């Protein structure tokens, strides 16, 4: 049974007050809150086991190494990876994608090659490819969206061709709440001989994910968006592909033999883990995916789907509101604009009532341009949010609008 009250008790910050109001945290797409057990895992790690890993023969080093590697196994299982060999810890989605853009992209892209992305990408899955394109002469192309925010798959079919070397796609959009057909894209990519990278920053926290079933070659996500600590993320890659890639960061741990003039590199996944890693954070992420596994990602998805639907309905009551993305098959977030009130002013007024939403371009400026707005407001839900919070949001929006309406331009 999915007991949201019990779940809420796990999150100390949900008792926080803003002024005299109880916090309503609806900025989960930016970062999630952390359950007590994740904080406890961090504290326990530091108070009992902290040591540098892999190279030490003493007890703490053994324990820290075991904890770190266990986390790797847990995260691999959580993502449906067939083993731990392809599971690399990074700082987050952004570093994961940059790793691919450097270590795979710089080595394999040439003038005339194409990388196919979409108009919906987060800057994290766009800027690294712009830099790789500048360095190699490859060209970026983009799958457009249709009016409802879903990908134009016919156009995708036309765009994928023999020049395509990699297709990169956001799995769940952090703005439109769409879930993109990455399985289909991966199939099309494979048929064209291209690799498929999935930006799972907004899917891994909210949907059951199975990288094998997705059929992708790379999958990136961030710990901090899925109940884990800041400072840790994941790149999963097919071992055969990772094996052939150049190293990315050089340093300790990723090497086998170092001479002054050249070096050879360690086995996977260590080849991509240079220097002292974010050990405690990886351990914390292990505790987070344990918890998500206990709750069941199907249940998390169902809870958020319902809440998102409820929010979509309640927000639609507001006269003149514009909600972005499709009506159906949405994740648990809603981006919107209200006439008369700039999103910044909106979130500020909401903040006074203890309600945290985000306003801005959500690191998706090209998508904002496509939608024809400089910014939107966004309420994003997670497994601990409840309908009463949606109600407080809607009421506060109505009041904010009353406040601003007299001054509307």
């Amino acid at each position, binding site marked *: 049974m999915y007991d949201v009250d019990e779940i809420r008790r796990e999150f100390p910050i949900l008792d926080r007050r803003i002024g005299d109001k109880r916090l309503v945290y609806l900025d989960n797409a930016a970062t999630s809150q952390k359950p007590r057990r994740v904080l406890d895992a961090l504290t326990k790690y530091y108070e009992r086991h902290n040591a540098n890993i892999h190279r030490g023969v003493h007890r703490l080093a053994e324990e820290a190494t075991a904890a770190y590697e266990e986390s790797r196994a847990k995260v691999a299982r959580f993502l449906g990876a067939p083993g731990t060999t392809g599971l690399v810890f990074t700082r987050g989605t952004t570093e994961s994608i940059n790793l691919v853009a450097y270590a795979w992209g710089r080595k394999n892209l040439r003038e005339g090659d194409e990388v196919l992305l979409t108009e919906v990408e987060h800057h994290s899955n766009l800027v690294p490819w712009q830099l790789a394109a500048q360095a190699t002469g490859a060209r970026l192309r983009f799958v457009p969206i249709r009016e409802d925010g879903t990908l134009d798959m016919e156009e995708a079919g036309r765009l994928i061709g023999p020049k395509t070397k990699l297709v990169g796609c956001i799995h769940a959009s952090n703005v439109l709440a769409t879930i993109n057909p990455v399985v289909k894209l991966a199939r099309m990519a494979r048929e064209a001989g291209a690799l498929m990278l999935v930006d799972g920053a907004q899917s891994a926290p909210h949907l059951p994910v199975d990288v094998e079933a997705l059929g992708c070659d790379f999958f990136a996500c961030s710990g901090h968006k899925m109940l884990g600590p800041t400072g840790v993320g994941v790149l999963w890659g097919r071992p055969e592909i990772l094996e052939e890639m150049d190293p990315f960061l050089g340093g300790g741990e990723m090497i086998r033999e170092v001479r002054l003039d050249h070096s050879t590199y360690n086995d996977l996944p260590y080849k991509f883990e240079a220097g002292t890693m974010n050990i405690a954070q990886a351990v914390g992420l292990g505790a987070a995916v344990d918890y998500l596994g206990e709750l069941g990602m199907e249940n998390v998805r169902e809870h958020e789907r319902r809440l998102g639907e409820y929010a979509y309905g309640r927000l639609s009551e507001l006269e003149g509101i514009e909600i972005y993305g499709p009506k159906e098959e949405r994740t648990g977030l809603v981006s919107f604009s209200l006439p008369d009130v700039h999103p910044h002013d909106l979130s500020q007024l909401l903040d*006074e009532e203890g309600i945290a939403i985000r306003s801005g371009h959500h690191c998706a400026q090209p998508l904002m341009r496509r939608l024809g707005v400089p910014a939107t407001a966004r309420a994003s839900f997670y497994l601990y949010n409840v309908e009463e919070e949606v109600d407080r949001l809607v009421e506060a929006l109505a009041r904010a609008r009353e406040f601003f309406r007299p*001054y509307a331009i």
Partner: protein
Amino acid sequence: MSMMRELYTQVILDHYQRPRNRGKLEDAELEEHLLNPLCGDEVTVCATFDGDKVADVKFSGRGCSISQASASMMTERLVGKSREEARAQIEGFKAMMIGEREFPETDDLAALKGVIRYPSRIKCATLAWTAFQRGLGIR
């Protein structure tokens, strides 16, 4: 919403509703576009000069009430100033916005005082001013 009244003062809402000097200038001698990377708001300021003195200033772009009101107030203040005076005026304002200088009680600008409590909004309030500063060749 009493805290809100401290931030969204009557003066701000008035400038937001009826921005002064909104628009573009043909033959602007100074023209500078600036984007707030954190939120996507943008502003373009332009100015003509009469010798060393600012003859006319206009601003355009889109943004929240704070950025629009602040831009509007800025244009009122810079007309007739020499480049040096404009520069000093802008530096003075930016110093107020980071709490390094007092807001003059009698000046409309004091309406922006409430913004200091919201660091993320300070960039909104200073956006047009920074654009003008850059237009003057100061980085």
